């Protein structure tokens, strides 16, 4: 009798497990608002439940509280979650790393970076950002960490930072918002890891779905293609 009663429940649970959507968490700071990115991705990734976070703390907290099946995040951040294995790398111009660029109002002297204030979007918790930036620019500047890409330009306008550090792919977008005489300086050997897709288990369906994303959706994620 008890077993008989349990069967429908077990069947329902089994079916639910079979049909429940894979949960995907996304964190990728860009000019586009998280709700807009979420709507765009959700439309293309049917059968998956997409949540795009605008705040790093919300993303990391939710991963711990309600773990997803997969995450899309900048490489440096994704590496903080070793349970998730990279199954696809976002790429620009064929590479999963892009050149790091400093944007400034005055010329930037590479040797003087250690004493400079450099603005950057926080993709890791604050203490880890120091090591991350050092690994990119080769020295340890004082960081001005902002929460959104659009907040980088005000750092230059108000003189709060001597330069802002971005990936090559963001330069035109940021300079396009300003009419100030902004200069760009390539960081010698400096590379920034693009977004990666990581999962706990089998991600073949998601991988196939991500590969169907159009130019607009991929642009929101800062990539133009995918590589294994």
């Amino acid at each position, binding site marked *: 009798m008890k077993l008989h009663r349990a069967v429908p429940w077990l069947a329902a649970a089994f079916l639910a497990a079979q049909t429940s959507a894979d949960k995907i968490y996304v964190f990728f700071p860009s000019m586009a608002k998280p709700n807009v990115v979420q709507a765009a991705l959700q439309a293309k990734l049917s059968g998956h439940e997409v949540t795009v976070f605008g705040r790093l703390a919300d993303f990391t907290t939710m991963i711990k509280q309600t773990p997803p099946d997969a995450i899309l995040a900048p490489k440096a951040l994704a590496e903080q979650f070793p349970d998730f294995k990279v199954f696809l790398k976002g790429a620009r111009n064929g590479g999963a790393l892009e050149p790091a660029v400093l944007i400034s109002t005055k010329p930037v002297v590479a040797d003087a970076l250690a004493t400079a204030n450099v603005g950057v979007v926080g993709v890791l*918790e604050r203490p880890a950002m120091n090591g991350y930036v050092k690994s990119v620019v080769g020295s340890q500047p004082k960081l*001005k960490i902002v929460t*959104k890409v*659009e907040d980088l330009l*005000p750092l230059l306008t108000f003189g709060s930072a001597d330069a802002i550090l971005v990936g090559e792919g963001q330069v035109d977008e940021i300079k*396009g918002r300003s009419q100030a005489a902004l200069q760009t300086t390539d960081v010698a050997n400096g590379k920034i890891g693009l977004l990666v897709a990581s999962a706990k288990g089998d991600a073949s369906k998601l991988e196939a779905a991500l590969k169907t994303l159009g130019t607009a959706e991929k642009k929101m994620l800062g990539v133009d293609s995918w590589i294994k």
Partner: protein
Amino acid sequence: MDQVKHAPTWIVAVATAFLGAAAFGQDESKRILVLHPAGPSFDDAKKGIQETLGDGYDLKGLVVTKETSVEEVQKAWKEAAPKVVVAMDNRGVALFKDARVKMSDSVTPGVALMGVRIDATIRDVQNVVGINYEIPAVTTIVNLRSLLSNPIKKIGVVHRASMDDMIRKNAEFCAQENVEIVGIRVPDDADAKSALNDALKELTKRSDIDVLLVINDNFFLNAKLVKEVWLPRLSGWKHPVVVGVESLVKPELKFGTFAVLPDNYALGAQAAGLVQEIEDAGWKVEDPKVDQPLSVIKTLNLRGMKSCCGVQQDKLGEVDKVLE
């Protein structure tokens, strides 16, 4: 056998040492006293501070009201023995300043934010840094410009004479972005209604004003003047009207077309950056300053904007809220 016998003692010793160290670490935690009024804006800012600084910092909040006494702040201050005091709102900042004097404590540094004219409020106060709450015009204009098809060269502003310094500072920032502020200055003792009416008449008849910026100042911005001056004067004026209050950008009101408000969580994150600068300097303010707020929440009255100006549809994704 002896080793087995002694193992528990060894474990206990290590555990005791570990727990002792942990307890010591807790005592040595970086405690921050936060004086803040109640409300979601202040909660957001506090959350921004806590989440940005992380677990190594212990935030002790004291909700301040009009009734909060300096003695209550002193008591909380003594109990918390903070490395830094963060004071929010003009009430919080005033209590911080008063408590400091009463305690003869100029050593504990302070961070002031979310008040009116924080720059003026903490001028001449030692060992304090701050962040203004007023959104600089340049931030507003850069965000608006990225949405519009037409260029923005000149923005009109009506302001009281007592705001001269703020307008000058904003003009400097705007000049960096090739935007000029055309300010109509009104004496502080003028009749608000007639002065506003005259100023708007002058600004709206000019053909070179691309945007009107409405300052959050109760002198000019209240329900009566919105109804009797702003709305009639701006009716038919085919340019964006930028406001700093979300309720004024509702399409049915036919007033503001674009609203820019502080992002309080990000403001907290920005304050956390100042706390870390203070810590890096050995828990003192090395560089007294008042920063500008960096992050904003943007609301667009799309219906109103479409009726007056060309909007770049592909840029709407950069706006936090689009009202139709």
